[in-house]
Protein backbone atom coordinates (compact mmCIF):
# COMPACT_ATOMS: atom_id res chain seq x y z
CA UNK A 1 0.00 0.00 0.00
CA UNK A 2 1.47 3.32 -1.09
CA UNK A 3 0.35 5.32 1.94
CA UNK A 4 2.30 8.42 0.95
CA UNK A 5 0.56 8.56 -2.40
CA UNK A 6 -2.94 8.20 -0.96
CA UNK A 7 -2.11 10.90 1.58
CA UNK A 8 -0.67 13.15 -1.13
CA UNK A 9 -3.76 12.92 -3.35
CA UNK A 10 -6.12 13.25 -0.39
CA UNK A 11 -4.33 16.31 0.93
CA UNK A 12 -4.17 17.84 -2.53
CA UNK A 13 -7.92 17.42 -2.96
CA UNK A 14 -8.70 18.80 0.49
CA UNK A 15 -6.45 21.80 -0.16
CA UNK A 16 -8.42 22.43 -3.33
CA UNK A 17 -11.60 22.41 -1.23
CA UNK A 18 -10.26 24.92 1.24
CA UNK A 19 -9.02 27.14 -1.56
CA UNK A 20 -12.59 27.39 -2.79
CA UNK A 21 -14.15 27.37 0.66
CA UNK A 22 -16.63 30.04 -0.31
CA UNK A 23 -18.27 28.08 -3.12
CA UNK A 24 -17.76 24.80 -1.34
CA UNK A 25 -19.45 25.63 1.92
CA UNK A 26 -21.26 28.90 1.73
CA UNK A 27 -23.39 28.17 -1.32
CA UNK A 28 -24.91 24.88 -0.03
CA UNK A 29 -25.58 26.52 3.31
CA UNK A 30 -27.31 29.46 1.68
CA UNK A 31 -29.41 27.27 -0.59
CA UNK A 32 -30.54 24.94 2.20
CA UNK A 33 -31.35 27.91 4.39
CA UNK A 34 -33.61 29.15 1.61
CA UNK A 35 -35.38 25.77 1.52
CA UNK A 36 -35.97 25.97 5.24
CA UNK A 37 -37.34 29.47 4.98
CA UNK A 38 -39.62 28.67 2.05
CA UNK A 39 -40.74 25.12 2.83
CA UNK A 40 -40.15 24.96 6.55
CA UNK A 41 -41.30 28.35 7.75
CA UNK A 42 -43.57 29.74 5.02
CA UNK A 43 -45.34 26.67 3.59
CA UNK A 44 -44.72 24.41 6.56
CA UNK A 45 -46.69 26.67 8.86
CA UNK A 46 -49.77 25.89 6.71
CA UNK A 47 -49.18 22.13 6.79
CA UNK A 48 -50.13 19.90 9.64
CA UNK A 49 -47.65 17.43 11.06
CA UNK A 50 -46.71 14.35 9.06
CA UNK A 51 -46.83 11.14 11.10
CA UNK A 52 -46.69 13.30 14.19
CA UNK A 53 -43.59 15.14 13.03
CA UNK A 54 -43.52 18.88 12.54
CA UNK A 55 -43.15 19.62 8.80
CA UNK A 56 -39.98 21.66 9.31
CA UNK A 57 -38.30 18.78 11.14
CA UNK A 58 -39.75 16.30 8.63
CA UNK A 59 -37.92 17.80 5.65
CA UNK A 60 -34.51 18.08 7.35
CA UNK A 61 -33.28 14.53 6.60
CA UNK A 62 -34.51 14.69 3.02
CA UNK A 63 -32.93 18.06 2.37
CA UNK A 64 -29.67 16.93 3.91
CA UNK A 65 -29.72 13.79 1.78
CA UNK A 66 -30.38 15.79 -1.39
CA UNK A 67 -27.44 18.07 -0.68
CA UNK A 68 -25.23 15.15 0.23
CA UNK A 69 -26.10 13.35 -3.01
CA UNK A 70 -25.52 16.25 -5.34
CA UNK A 71 -22.42 17.49 -3.53
CA UNK A 72 -20.80 14.07 -3.44
CA UNK A 73 -21.40 13.64 -7.14
CA UNK A 74 -20.16 17.08 -8.12
CA UNK A 75 -17.12 16.98 -5.82
CA UNK A 76 -15.93 13.63 -7.00
CA UNK A 77 -16.76 14.06 -10.68
CA UNK A 78 -14.98 17.37 -10.84
CA UNK A 79 -12.06 16.09 -8.76
CA UNK A 80 -11.17 13.46 -11.36
CA UNK A 81 -12.46 15.28 -14.44
CA UNK A 82 -10.26 18.31 -13.87
CA UNK A 83 -6.85 16.56 -13.96
CA UNK A 84 -8.09 14.53 -16.92
CA UNK A 85 -9.16 17.69 -18.72
CA UNK A 86 -5.96 19.62 -17.94
CA UNK A 87 -3.76 16.59 -18.54
CA UNK A 88 -2.17 16.48 -15.09
CA UNK A 89 -3.63 13.00 -14.65
CA UNK A 90 -0.48 11.71 -16.38
CA UNK A 91 1.33 12.00 -13.10
CA UNK A 92 -1.12 9.88 -11.16
CA UNK A 93 -1.24 7.26 -13.92
CA UNK A 94 2.55 7.02 -14.08
CA UNK A 95 2.97 6.81 -10.30
CA UNK A 96 3.43 3.56 -8.40
CA UNK A 97 -0.16 3.60 -7.12
CA UNK A 98 -2.76 0.89 -7.52
CA UNK A 99 -6.22 1.58 -8.86
CA UNK A 100 -7.67 0.97 -5.44
CA UNK A 101 -5.39 3.60 -3.95
CA UNK A 102 -6.34 6.16 -6.59
CA UNK A 103 -10.04 5.59 -5.98
CA UNK A 104 -9.63 5.58 -2.21
CA UNK A 105 -7.83 8.92 -2.27
CA UNK A 106 -10.14 10.74 -4.68
CA UNK A 107 -13.40 9.28 -3.39
CA UNK A 108 -12.25 9.60 0.21
CA UNK A 109 -11.53 13.29 -0.24
CA UNK A 110 -14.82 13.96 -2.04
CA UNK A 111 -16.78 12.08 0.61
CA UNK A 112 -14.99 13.88 3.44
CA UNK A 113 -15.87 17.19 1.89
CA UNK A 114 -19.55 16.38 1.47
CA UNK A 115 -19.81 14.94 4.99
CA UNK A 116 -18.29 18.13 6.36
CA UNK A 117 -20.76 20.23 4.42
CA UNK A 118 -23.57 17.89 5.49
CA UNK A 119 -22.74 18.57 9.12
CA UNK A 120 -22.64 22.30 8.47
CA UNK A 121 -26.09 22.08 6.86
CA UNK A 122 -27.34 20.08 9.83
CA UNK A 123 -26.10 22.79 12.16
CA UNK A 124 -27.78 25.41 9.97
CA UNK A 125 -31.03 23.45 10.06
CA UNK A 126 -30.96 23.36 13.83
CA UNK A 127 -31.21 27.14 13.78
CA UNK A 128 -34.56 26.93 11.96
CA UNK A 129 -36.26 23.86 13.44
CA UNK A 130 -35.97 21.93 16.67
CA UNK A 131 -33.97 18.85 15.75
CA UNK A 132 -33.98 15.43 17.25
CA UNK A 133 -31.78 12.54 16.20
CA UNK A 134 -33.13 9.32 17.64
CA UNK A 135 -30.52 6.96 16.22
CA UNK A 136 -27.26 8.92 15.87
CA UNK A 137 -25.16 5.90 14.86
CA UNK A 138 -27.50 4.94 12.05
CA UNK A 139 -27.59 8.60 11.06
CA UNK A 140 -23.77 8.71 10.78
CA UNK A 141 -23.77 5.37 8.99
CA UNK A 142 -26.18 6.66 6.32
CA UNK A 143 -24.24 9.89 6.06
CA UNK A 144 -20.95 8.11 5.40
CA UNK A 145 -22.41 5.37 3.22
CA UNK A 146 -24.28 7.86 1.03
CA UNK A 147 -21.28 10.18 0.74
CA UNK A 148 -18.99 7.33 -0.26
CA UNK A 149 -21.47 5.70 -2.63
CA UNK A 150 -22.31 8.87 -4.51
CA UNK A 151 -18.72 10.07 -4.55
CA UNK A 152 -17.91 6.81 -6.24
CA UNK A 153 -20.79 7.41 -8.65
CA UNK A 154 -19.44 10.92 -9.26
CA UNK A 155 -15.97 9.52 -9.89
CA UNK A 156 -17.45 7.29 -12.60
CA UNK A 157 -19.21 10.26 -14.19
CA UNK A 158 -15.98 12.27 -14.06
CA UNK A 159 -14.11 9.55 -15.90
CA UNK A 160 -16.87 8.96 -18.43
CA UNK A 161 -17.35 12.66 -19.19
CA UNK A 162 -15.25 13.99 -22.04
CA UNK A 163 -16.68 17.49 -21.88
CA UNK A 164 -18.21 19.83 -19.36
CA UNK A 165 -21.70 19.15 -20.72
CA UNK A 166 -21.47 15.46 -19.97
CA UNK A 167 -20.22 16.30 -16.52
CA UNK A 168 -23.48 18.16 -15.85
CA UNK A 169 -25.97 16.09 -17.75
CA UNK A 170 -26.42 13.13 -15.40
CA UNK A 171 -26.65 15.24 -12.24
CA UNK A 172 -29.10 17.52 -14.03
CA UNK A 173 -31.29 15.04 -15.88
CA UNK A 174 -31.17 12.03 -13.59
CA UNK A 175 -30.06 12.89 -10.10
CA UNK A 176 -32.00 16.11 -9.52
CA UNK A 177 -35.38 14.64 -10.57
CA UNK A 178 -34.79 11.48 -8.56
CA UNK A 179 -33.78 13.56 -5.56
CA UNK A 180 -36.88 15.77 -5.81
CA UNK A 181 -39.14 12.75 -6.21
CA UNK A 182 -37.29 10.91 -3.46
CA UNK A 183 -39.66 11.92 -0.70
CA UNK A 184 -37.65 14.77 0.74
CA UNK A 185 -40.72 16.97 1.00
CA UNK A 186 -43.47 14.37 1.44
CA UNK A 187 -44.15 10.93 2.75
CA UNK A 188 -44.49 8.26 0.06
CA UNK A 189 -47.82 7.09 1.50
CA UNK A 190 -49.27 10.52 0.70
CA UNK A 191 -49.07 9.50 -2.99
CA UNK A 192 -51.73 7.55 -4.95
CA UNK A 193 -50.97 3.78 -4.90
CA UNK A 194 -49.67 3.75 -8.50
CA UNK A 195 -47.06 6.44 -7.80
CA UNK A 196 -46.16 4.76 -4.54
CA UNK A 197 -45.23 1.67 -6.53
CA UNK A 198 -43.27 3.74 -9.05
CA UNK A 199 -41.43 5.46 -6.21
CA UNK A 200 -40.03 2.16 -5.07
CA UNK A 201 -37.86 2.13 -8.20
CA UNK A 202 -36.25 5.37 -7.11
CA UNK A 203 -33.10 4.63 -5.10
CA UNK A 204 -33.21 8.03 -3.44
CA UNK A 205 -36.48 7.04 -1.72
CA UNK A 206 -34.58 4.42 0.24
CA UNK A 207 -31.84 6.81 1.25
CA UNK A 208 -34.23 9.52 2.41
CA UNK A 209 -36.43 7.03 4.15
CA UNK A 210 -33.61 5.33 6.04
CA UNK A 211 -32.04 8.62 6.91
CA UNK A 212 -35.33 10.02 8.18
CA UNK A 213 -35.82 6.93 10.29
CA UNK A 214 -32.57 7.72 12.09
CA UNK A 215 -33.93 11.16 12.92
CA UNK A 216 -37.59 10.59 13.75
CA UNK A 217 -37.83 6.83 14.17
CA UNK A 218 -40.44 6.45 11.42
CA UNK A 219 -39.91 5.55 7.78
CA UNK A 220 -41.70 4.78 4.49
CA UNK A 221 -39.70 1.60 3.99
CA UNK A 222 -37.85 -0.53 6.51
CA UNK A 223 -34.46 0.74 7.53
CA UNK A 224 -32.87 -2.63 6.70
CA UNK A 225 -34.22 -2.41 3.16
CA UNK A 226 -32.82 1.11 2.91
CA UNK A 227 -29.39 -0.01 4.02
CA UNK A 228 -29.43 -3.00 1.69
CA UNK A 229 -30.40 -0.85 -1.30
CA UNK A 230 -27.64 1.65 -0.56
CA UNK A 231 -25.09 -1.11 -0.17
CA UNK A 232 -26.26 -2.65 -3.45
CA UNK A 233 -25.77 0.64 -5.29
CA UNK A 234 -22.33 0.96 -3.72
CA UNK A 235 -21.45 -2.52 -4.95
CA UNK A 236 -22.60 -1.68 -8.50
CA UNK A 237 -20.44 1.44 -8.52
CA UNK A 238 -17.46 -0.54 -7.30
CA UNK A 239 -17.85 -3.08 -10.08
CA UNK A 240 -17.98 -0.31 -12.68
CA UNK A 241 -14.90 1.43 -11.24
CA UNK A 242 -12.87 -1.76 -11.22
CA UNK A 243 -13.87 -2.38 -14.84
CA UNK A 244 -12.79 1.18 -15.73
CA UNK A 245 -9.32 0.64 -14.32
CA UNK A 246 -8.95 -2.85 -15.70
CA UNK A 247 -9.60 -1.66 -19.22
CA UNK A 248 -8.11 1.83 -18.85
CA UNK A 249 -11.44 3.18 -20.15
CA UNK A 250 -11.13 6.91 -20.92
CA UNK A 251 -7.86 6.98 -18.96
CA UNK A 252 -5.35 5.17 -21.15
CA UNK A 253 -5.03 4.57 -24.85
Amino acid at each position, binding site marked *: *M*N*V*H*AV*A*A*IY*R*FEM*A*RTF*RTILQSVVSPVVSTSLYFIVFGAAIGSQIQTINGVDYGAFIVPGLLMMSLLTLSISNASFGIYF*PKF*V*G*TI*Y*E*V*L*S*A*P*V*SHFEIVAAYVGAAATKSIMIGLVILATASLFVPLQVQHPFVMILFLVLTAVTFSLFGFIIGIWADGFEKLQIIPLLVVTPLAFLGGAFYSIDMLPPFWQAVSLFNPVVYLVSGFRWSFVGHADVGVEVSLAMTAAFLAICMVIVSWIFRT*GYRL*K*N
Partner: protein
Amino acid sequence: MNETVPAAKILRSAERAEAPAIAIAGLSKTYKTGFEALKSVDLTIRSGEIFALLGPNGAGKTTLINIVCGLVNASAGTVQVDGYDIIRDFRAARSRIGLVPQELVIDGFETVWATVSFSRGLFGKRRDDALVERVLKELSLWDKKDSKVNTLSGGMKRRVMIAKALAHEPQVLFLDEPTAGVDVELRRDMWAMVRRMRDRGVTIILTTHYIEEAEEMADRVGVIRKGEIILVEDKTALMKNLGKNRLSVELVTPIDAVPEALAAHGLEIADGGRRLVYVYDTAAERTGITTLLSDIGKAGLRFRDIETSQSTLEDIFVGLVRDPQ
Protein backbone atom coordinates in the same frame (compact mmCIF):
# COMPACT_ATOMS: atom_id res chain seq x y z
CA MET B 1 5.83 -0.82 4.30
CA ASN B 2 6.73 -4.34 5.22
CA GLU B 3 6.64 -6.34 2.07
CA THR B 4 7.81 -9.87 2.37
CA VAL B 5 10.29 -10.68 -0.33
CA PRO B 6 9.44 -13.87 -2.20
CA ALA B 7 12.30 -16.26 -2.88
CA ALA B 8 11.99 -15.75 -6.62
CA LYS B 9 12.71 -12.07 -6.15
CA ILE B 10 15.83 -12.73 -4.10
CA LEU B 11 17.07 -15.10 -6.77
CA ARG B 12 16.38 -12.59 -9.43
CA SER B 13 18.12 -9.78 -7.59
CA ALA B 14 21.50 -11.12 -8.65
CA GLU B 15 20.49 -10.91 -12.30
CA ARG B 16 19.03 -7.51 -11.65
CA ALA B 17 22.37 -6.02 -10.66
CA GLU B 18 23.30 -6.64 -14.28
CA ALA B 19 19.93 -5.63 -15.63
CA PRO B 20 19.81 -2.82 -18.15
CA ALA B 21 17.93 0.31 -17.14
CA ILE B 22 15.25 -0.44 -19.72
CA ALA B 23 14.73 -3.62 -21.70
CA ILE B 24 12.07 -3.45 -24.39
CA ALA B 25 11.19 -6.55 -26.39
CA GLY B 26 8.72 -6.94 -29.24
CA LEU B 27 6.82 -3.83 -28.26
CA SER B 28 3.91 -3.01 -30.52
CA LYS B 29 1.13 -0.49 -30.29
CA THR B 30 -1.94 -0.22 -32.43
CA TYR B 31 -4.20 2.66 -31.42
CA LYS B 32 -7.97 2.30 -31.45
CA THR B 33 -8.01 4.16 -34.74
CA GLY B 34 -6.17 1.17 -36.19
CA PHE B 35 -2.96 3.15 -36.54
CA GLU B 36 0.15 1.11 -35.88
CA ALA B 37 2.40 3.48 -33.94
CA LEU B 38 5.03 0.92 -32.89
CA LYS B 39 6.01 -2.18 -34.80
CA SER B 40 7.72 -4.77 -32.64
CA VAL B 41 10.35 -2.53 -31.13
CA ASP B 42 13.38 -4.03 -29.38
CA LEU B 43 15.55 -1.61 -27.46
CA THR B 44 17.93 -1.81 -24.54
CA ILE B 45 18.98 1.24 -22.59
CA ARG B 46 22.12 0.76 -20.54
CA SER B 47 22.24 1.80 -16.97
CA GLY B 48 23.77 5.26 -16.51
CA GLU B 49 23.80 6.37 -20.14
CA ILE B 50 22.25 9.32 -21.90
CA PHE B 51 20.23 7.95 -24.77
CA ALA B 52 18.79 10.23 -27.42
CA LEU B 53 15.79 8.99 -29.34
CA LEU B 54 15.50 10.80 -32.64
CA GLY B 55 12.75 10.63 -35.17
CA PRO B 56 10.46 12.83 -37.22
CA ASN B 57 7.04 13.94 -36.01
CA GLY B 58 4.72 11.01 -35.50
CA ALA B 59 7.51 8.44 -35.51
CA GLY B 60 6.31 6.96 -32.21
CA LYS B 61 8.72 8.46 -29.67
CA THR B 62 6.08 9.64 -27.25
CA THR B 63 4.10 6.44 -27.67
CA LEU B 64 7.18 4.44 -26.71
CA ILE B 65 7.88 6.57 -23.64
CA ASN B 66 4.24 6.57 -22.56
CA ILE B 67 4.07 2.80 -22.66
CA VAL B 68 7.17 2.49 -20.48
CA CYS B 69 5.70 4.99 -18.03
CA GLY B 70 2.28 3.33 -17.85
CA LEU B 71 0.25 5.98 -19.67
CA VAL B 72 -0.52 3.89 -22.73
CA ASN B 73 -1.28 0.18 -22.84
CA ALA B 74 0.96 -1.84 -25.15
CA SER B 75 -0.70 -4.08 -27.73
CA ALA B 76 2.12 -6.63 -27.50
CA GLY B 77 5.59 -7.03 -26.08
CA THR B 78 7.26 -6.54 -22.74
CA VAL B 79 9.13 -3.78 -20.94
CA GLN B 80 11.38 -4.16 -17.93
CA VAL B 81 12.75 -1.32 -15.86
CA ASP B 82 15.82 -2.29 -13.90
CA GLY B 83 14.68 -5.89 -14.30
CA TYR B 84 11.12 -5.23 -13.10
CA ASP B 85 8.23 -5.86 -15.47
CA ILE B 86 6.13 -2.70 -15.93
CA ILE B 87 2.87 -4.63 -15.51
CA ARG B 88 3.61 -7.38 -13.02
CA ASP B 89 5.97 -5.35 -10.82
CA PHE B 90 4.48 -1.99 -11.65
CA ARG B 91 5.26 -0.46 -8.28
CA ALA B 92 8.95 -1.32 -8.38
CA ALA B 93 9.22 -0.33 -12.04
CA ARG B 94 7.36 2.97 -11.81
CA SER B 95 8.97 4.17 -8.60
CA ARG B 96 12.28 4.14 -10.48
CA ILE B 97 11.03 6.34 -13.31
CA GLY B 98 10.70 10.09 -13.60
CA LEU B 99 8.80 11.49 -16.58
CA VAL B 100 8.80 14.97 -18.06
CA PRO B 101 6.09 14.76 -20.71
CA GLN B 102 6.20 16.54 -24.03
CA GLU B 103 3.26 18.78 -23.29
CA LEU B 104 3.30 21.46 -20.66
CA VAL B 105 0.60 20.18 -18.29
CA ILE B 106 0.63 21.41 -14.75
CA ASP B 107 -1.92 22.55 -12.20
CA GLY B 108 -1.63 26.33 -12.24
CA PHE B 109 -3.43 26.90 -8.95
CA GLU B 110 -0.76 25.20 -6.88
CA THR B 111 2.44 26.77 -5.56
CA VAL B 112 5.73 25.48 -6.89
CA TRP B 113 6.63 24.03 -3.52
CA ALA B 114 3.28 22.27 -3.11
CA THR B 115 3.23 20.71 -6.54
CA VAL B 116 6.80 19.42 -6.29
CA SER B 117 6.20 17.99 -2.81
CA PHE B 118 2.99 16.40 -4.08
CA SER B 119 4.92 14.53 -6.77
CA ARG B 120 7.31 13.15 -4.19
CA GLY B 121 4.46 11.83 -2.06
CA LEU B 122 2.68 10.41 -5.09
CA PHE B 123 5.70 8.27 -5.84
CA GLY B 124 5.61 6.86 -2.34
CA LYS B 125 8.47 8.81 -0.85
CA ARG B 126 8.48 10.28 2.62
CA ARG B 127 8.43 14.07 2.85
CA ASP B 128 11.93 15.51 2.53
CA ASP B 129 12.07 19.29 2.51
CA ALA B 130 15.85 19.42 2.13
CA LEU B 131 15.69 17.38 -1.04
CA VAL B 132 12.89 19.45 -2.56
CA GLU B 133 14.91 22.54 -1.70
CA ARG B 134 17.97 21.16 -3.47
CA VAL B 135 15.97 20.25 -6.59
CA LEU B 136 14.38 23.71 -6.74
CA LYS B 137 17.71 25.43 -6.26
CA GLU B 138 19.35 23.37 -8.97
CA LEU B 139 16.64 24.39 -11.38
CA SER B 140 16.81 28.06 -10.30
CA LEU B 141 13.28 27.90 -8.94
CA TRP B 142 14.01 28.50 -5.29
CA ASP B 143 12.92 32.13 -5.28
CA LYS B 144 9.67 31.05 -6.94
CA LYS B 145 8.84 28.34 -4.45
CA ASP B 146 5.81 30.16 -3.02
CA SER B 147 4.54 31.45 -6.35
CA LYS B 148 1.47 30.01 -7.96
CA VAL B 149 2.49 28.00 -11.00
CA ASN B 150 0.25 29.99 -13.36
CA THR B 151 2.17 33.17 -12.53
CA LEU B 152 5.35 31.67 -14.00
CA SER B 153 6.66 31.94 -17.54
CA GLY B 154 6.53 28.96 -19.89
CA GLY B 155 10.20 28.17 -19.43
CA MET B 156 9.84 28.23 -15.67
CA LYS B 157 6.80 25.97 -15.86
CA ARG B 158 8.85 23.50 -17.82
CA ARG B 159 11.48 23.58 -15.10
CA VAL B 160 8.77 22.98 -12.52
CA MET B 161 7.76 19.88 -14.48
CA ILE B 162 11.36 18.71 -14.38
CA ALA B 163 11.49 19.39 -10.65
CA LYS B 164 8.34 17.29 -10.21
CA ALA B 165 9.94 14.43 -12.12
CA LEU B 166 13.09 14.62 -9.99
CA ALA B 167 11.33 14.98 -6.64
CA HIS B 168 11.28 11.24 -5.97
CA GLU B 169 14.91 10.69 -6.94
CA PRO B 170 14.28 8.52 -9.99
CA GLN B 171 16.96 6.24 -11.41
CA VAL B 172 15.65 6.60 -14.93
CA LEU B 173 14.58 9.95 -16.31
CA PHE B 174 12.51 10.39 -19.46
CA LEU B 175 12.65 13.80 -21.06
CA ASP B 176 10.20 14.03 -23.94
CA GLU B 177 11.41 17.05 -25.87
CA PRO B 178 12.59 18.92 -22.79
CA THR B 179 13.87 21.92 -24.68
CA ALA B 180 11.06 22.55 -27.14
CA GLY B 181 10.29 26.26 -27.02
CA VAL B 182 13.04 26.97 -24.52
CA ASP B 183 15.57 29.77 -25.03
CA VAL B 184 19.24 29.12 -25.63
CA GLU B 185 20.38 29.97 -22.13
CA LEU B 186 17.82 27.78 -20.45
CA ARG B 187 18.66 24.99 -22.86
CA ARG B 188 22.30 25.16 -21.76
CA ASP B 189 21.13 25.08 -18.14
CA MET B 190 19.08 22.00 -18.85
CA TRP B 191 21.97 20.26 -20.52
CA ALA B 192 24.09 21.01 -17.46
CA MET B 193 21.33 19.61 -15.28
CA VAL B 194 21.11 16.46 -17.39
CA ARG B 195 24.86 15.95 -17.11
CA ARG B 196 24.73 16.37 -13.36
CA MET B 197 21.99 13.75 -13.20
CA ARG B 198 24.08 11.40 -15.30
CA ASP B 199 27.07 11.96 -13.02
CA ARG B 200 24.88 10.84 -10.15
CA GLY B 201 24.17 7.62 -12.00
CA VAL B 202 20.73 8.46 -13.39
CA THR B 203 19.91 6.95 -16.78
CA ILE B 204 18.47 9.55 -19.14
CA ILE B 205 16.36 8.99 -22.21
CA LEU B 206 15.56 12.10 -24.17
CA THR B 207 13.76 12.80 -27.38
CA THR B 208 14.48 15.90 -29.30
CA HIS B 209 14.17 17.58 -32.63
CA TYR B 210 17.33 19.57 -32.03
CA ILE B 211 19.99 17.29 -33.40
CA GLU B 212 22.53 19.62 -31.89
CA GLU B 213 21.21 18.51 -28.55
CA ALA B 214 21.75 14.82 -29.23
CA GLU B 215 25.16 15.57 -30.66
CA GLU B 216 26.11 17.50 -27.58
CA MET B 217 24.59 15.28 -24.93
CA ALA B 218 24.03 11.72 -25.93
CA ASP B 219 26.20 8.67 -25.37
CA ARG B 220 24.09 6.67 -27.76
CA VAL B 221 21.57 7.59 -30.37
CA GLY B 222 18.54 5.66 -31.55
CA VAL B 223 16.60 6.60 -34.64
CA ILE B 224 12.94 5.70 -34.92
CA ARG B 225 10.96 6.01 -38.10
CA LYS B 226 7.32 5.04 -38.65
CA GLY B 227 7.25 2.97 -35.49
CA GLU B 228 10.45 1.07 -36.20
CA ILE B 229 13.86 1.53 -34.63
CA ILE B 230 16.09 1.76 -37.67
CA LEU B 231 19.38 2.36 -35.92
CA VAL B 232 20.96 2.34 -32.49
CA GLU B 233 24.59 3.28 -32.19
CA ASP B 234 27.20 5.02 -30.08
CA LYS B 235 27.15 8.63 -31.06
CA THR B 236 30.84 8.87 -31.85
CA ALA B 237 30.81 5.66 -33.87
CA LEU B 238 27.73 6.81 -35.71
CA MET B 239 29.29 10.08 -36.68
CA LYS B 240 32.46 8.37 -37.71
CA ASN B 241 30.81 5.63 -39.72
CA LEU B 242 28.04 7.54 -41.37
CA GLY B 243 29.72 10.89 -41.34
CA LYS B 244 30.79 12.33 -44.68
CA ASN B 245 33.24 15.07 -45.37
CA ARG B 246 32.73 17.62 -48.07
CA LEU B 247 35.43 19.29 -50.02
CA SER B 248 34.36 22.40 -51.83
CA VAL B 249 36.64 23.91 -54.46
CA GLU B 250 35.99 27.50 -55.46
CA LEU B 251 36.91 28.10 -59.09
CA VAL B 252 38.32 31.25 -60.61
CA THR B 253 36.20 30.84 -63.78
CA PRO B 254 32.71 29.33 -63.49
CA ILE B 255 32.03 26.19 -65.54
CA ASP B 256 28.85 24.71 -67.04
CA ALA B 257 29.68 21.03 -66.73
CA VAL B 258 32.20 18.80 -65.00
CA PRO B 259 35.06 18.31 -67.48
CA GLU B 260 35.37 14.81 -68.93
CA ALA B 261 38.79 14.38 -67.29
CA LEU B 262 37.26 14.66 -63.85
CA ALA B 263 34.22 12.38 -64.41
CA ALA B 264 35.74 9.55 -62.37
CA HIS B 265 35.66 11.60 -59.17
CA GLY B 266 31.87 11.91 -58.98
CA LEU B 267 31.87 15.66 -58.51
CA GLU B 268 28.91 17.96 -58.34
CA ILE B 269 28.64 21.52 -59.50
CA ALA B 270 27.35 24.06 -57.01
CA ASP B 271 26.89 27.78 -56.64
CA GLY B 272 26.05 28.36 -60.33
CA GLY B 273 29.22 26.68 -61.56
CA ARG B 274 31.54 28.54 -59.27
CA ARG B 275 32.17 25.51 -57.03
CA LEU B 276 32.98 21.85 -57.38
CA VAL B 277 31.84 19.69 -54.51
CA TYR B 278 33.48 16.40 -53.62
CA VAL B 279 31.98 14.15 -50.92
CA TYR B 280 34.20 11.51 -49.37
CA ASP B 281 33.94 8.96 -46.63
CA THR B 282 35.73 9.91 -43.42
CA ALA B 283 36.26 6.29 -42.50
CA ALA B 284 37.77 5.32 -45.85
CA GLU B 285 41.46 4.58 -46.06
CA ARG B 286 42.10 6.71 -49.09
CA THR B 287 40.12 9.90 -49.42
CA GLY B 288 41.23 10.59 -52.98
CA ILE B 289 41.83 14.28 -52.31
CA THR B 290 45.40 14.38 -53.60
CA THR B 291 44.54 12.85 -56.95
CA LEU B 292 41.44 15.01 -57.24
CA LEU B 293 43.39 18.23 -56.75
CA SER B 294 46.10 17.23 -59.19
CA ASP B 295 43.45 16.12 -61.74
CA ILE B 296 41.72 19.49 -61.39
CA GLY B 297 45.04 21.16 -62.21
CA LYS B 298 45.57 18.83 -65.18
CA ALA B 299 42.07 19.63 -66.49
CA GLY B 300 43.17 23.26 -66.68
CA LEU B 301 40.87 24.57 -63.95
CA ARG B 302 42.25 27.12 -61.56
CA PHE B 303 40.87 27.42 -58.07
CA ARG B 304 40.81 30.27 -55.64
CA ASP B 305 40.01 28.50 -52.39
CA ILE B 306 39.32 25.12 -50.82
CA GLU B 307 36.94 24.38 -47.96
CA THR B 308 36.18 21.20 -46.09
CA SER B 309 33.28 20.54 -43.76
CA GLN B 310 32.15 17.56 -41.74
CA SER B 311 28.60 16.38 -41.80
CA THR B 312 26.75 16.92 -38.58
CA LEU B 313 24.52 14.43 -36.85
CA GLU B 314 21.71 16.37 -38.45
CA ASP B 315 22.90 15.56 -41.97
CA ILE B 316 23.21 11.93 -40.99
CA PHE B 317 19.79 11.95 -39.43
CA VAL B 318 18.11 13.61 -42.38
CA GLY B 319 19.76 11.09 -44.69
CA LEU B 320 18.59 8.18 -42.57
CA VAL B 321 15.05 9.28 -42.19
CA ARG B 322 14.59 10.24 -45.86
CA ASP B 323 15.87 7.04 -47.37
CA PRO B 324 16.85 4.26 -45.03
CA GLN B 325 19.49 2.10 -46.71
